[in-house]
């Protein structure tokens, strides 16, 4: 159990690639922190630097106040779960889990006891004498977890531990990891590129892009107050809708109607160096079928023809095409949303009671106060500064 401080850490590889740039985060004791971002943004590199598997080029890593930069992995007392599980194929499950204890020269009885306890926690007891080759993917994943928890380390480091599992098992393991971490209370750094995992697991999310931290905060905060277009596009599923918009006198002109510049939109429009052409973002959840909204005062309406309707059970997703070009921004393409087509598309999440039909026009209501405005060049969220 430990507090981990990454003090302005930079990683420059031998070939000059800056994989992590000025990473500055303080991870509290017991905290579950998620590192999330698109492929190649430096998540694994950051984790490996905490683990000691990669050297730190600049900055300082401190655990409980002690500098760790020069310490070998085994002197850092952290356990790691790899994406590939990295089980030792020549050892049985029992030997795999006991390996860290064997290296720590722990007595036979205590080793036995700890292995059994870890196996019990992870439902591995029936498989203790099998080799990893004779286990299913989910079981291997649990053995990898077992090897991490058996030693009671200062911190867990996990690099996409669930990405090799099928969807259902992933959800299952997600909850058990969450529960395990809560009951053990061990500081955890968890790397993923899956925004759902990030949203559901962590106390705090660190969202990265091209080696730079974009935003740090609890999941809900990132969702409600994305600092820039990249974060807005990355967090949330389906992703936030973005449409081109234009600021005029007291009005925001968008393809889904004119929005009066009041409240936070008004404040955003008055800010310094705000261009006339901006990007407006609105989450699918901020829409509703107008006929189901009684108090349609605070909001705009928009009528469109449903291209496609997906019934998800607790909600319906309606897809529309707007008669305007799609927003093009480098901040979006990297966020992992669908590849932007020529046309501007819109997704609305509606109540299942909605009468929207495919091919039929429907009138939508949306919450104008939930609209975000982004700077088209820098991607900065103008409504959040």
């Amino acid at each position, binding site marked *: 159990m430990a507090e981990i401080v990454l003090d302005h850490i930079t990683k420059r590889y031998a070939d000059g690639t800056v994989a992590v740039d000025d990473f500055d985060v303080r991870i509290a004791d017991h905290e579950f922190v998620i590192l999330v971002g698109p492929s190649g943004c430096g998540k694994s590199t950051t984790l490996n630097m905490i683990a000691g598997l990669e050297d730190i080029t600049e900055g300082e890593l401190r655990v409980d106040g002690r500098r760790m930069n020069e310490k070998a992995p*085994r002197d850092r007392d952290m356990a790691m779960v790899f994406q590939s599980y990295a089980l*030792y194929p*020549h050892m049985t499950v029992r030997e795999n889990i006991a390996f860290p204890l064997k290296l720590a020269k722990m007595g036979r009885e205590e080793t036995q006891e700890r292995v059994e306890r870890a196996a019990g926690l992870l439902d591995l007891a029936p498989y203790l004498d099998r080799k990893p*080759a004779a286990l299913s993917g989910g079981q291997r994943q649990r053995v990898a977890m077992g090897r991490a928890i058996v030693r009671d380390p200062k911190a867990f480091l996990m690099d996409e531990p669930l990405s090799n599992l099928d969807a259902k098992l992933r959800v299952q393991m997600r909850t058990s990891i969450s529960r395990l971490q809560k009951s053990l209370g061990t500081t955890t750094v968890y790397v993923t590129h899956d925004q759902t995992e990030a949203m559901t697991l962590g106390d705090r999310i660190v969202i990265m892009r091209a080696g730079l931290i974009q935003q740090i905060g609890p999941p809900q905060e990132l969702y409600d107050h994305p600092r820039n277009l990249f974060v807005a596009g990355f967090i949330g599923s389906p992703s936030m809708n973005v449409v081109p918009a234009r600021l005029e006198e007291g009005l925001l002109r968008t393809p889904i109607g004119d929005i009066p510049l009041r409240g936070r939109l008004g404040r955003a429009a008055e800010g310094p160096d705000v261009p006339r052409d901006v990007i407006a973002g609105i989450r699918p959840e901020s829409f509703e079928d107008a006929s189901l909204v009684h108090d349609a005062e605070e909001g705009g309406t928009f009528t469109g023809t449903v291209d496609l309707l997906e019934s998800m059970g607790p909600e319906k997703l309606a897809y529309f095409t707007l008669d305007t070009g799609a927003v093009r921004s480098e901040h979006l393409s990297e966020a992992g949303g669908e590849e932007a087509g020529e046309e501007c598309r819109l997704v609305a999440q509606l109540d299942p009671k909605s009468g929207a039909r495919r091919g039929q026009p429907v009138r939508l209501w949306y919450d104008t106060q939930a609209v975000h405005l982004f700077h088209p060049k820098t991607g900065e969220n103008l409504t959040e500064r």
Partner: protein
Amino acid sequence: MEAGRRSVSGWTVANVVVVLYAMVPVLWIASLSFKDPSTFTDGSFIPRKWTLGNYAGIFTNADFVRGLVNSIGIGLISTFVAIVFGTMAAYAVARLTFPGKRLLIGVSLLIAMFPQISLVSPLFQIERALGLFNTWAGLILPYITFALPLTIYTLSAFFREIPWELEKAAKMDGATPFQAFWQVIVPLAAPGMVTTAILAFIFCWNDFLFAISLTSSDAARTAPATISFFTGSTQFEDPTGSISAAAVVITIPIVIFVLFFQRRIVAGLTSGAVKG
């Protein structure tokens, strides 16, 4: 269906031809070794007059027995040393980037390619000067030199197959680099090491050139060289029987070696390490 059966029988024929081609000379030698000296030239494949006399003869020949001992000792020591150093070097080649890595690979390839015959005279002079001539060390050293490129090559191929994450996992589990190597990497590379050891041993065991040039007496002369010194019991008698018996005898350890370790030379030992 028909075509499938035809191709199976085609393969069978091809295999039989290859096996026969390889085995006939060996069997011929074996047959000779069991023939009574009076029937050597009868041209019959199956001996008409069986005898174990040839075998009895070579084992009462102190030179040959001594040669066997030399062969086994020199072969095992050379193999052991080559494997130990070869494993470390191969690991470095496979896993690390260090200055001069390409040079190391290039030089070891060069050594493997070098015609041994051109080294015999210089080696002879050097060993005489150093007092290594006609000693075990005098053979072990050149054997190691020539076995090392082989071991480095084959072993580095094996090491490359082992997922690197296993080593990282071991480090995270608290292993020193040496423990990670010894407890995780080496067991996984074991089939490769055994295969390589067999190849290295066979190389040392079969060598004739160095054995004949760098020895002058029983002190270090290995079995293949000893055989060339066989004489018949009288001046006019051919030592054919003894030579073929000795040839069979020195083949047996190799066969045993391979059969014994065949089970360990199995692929797929690393399965289950990563992913699913």
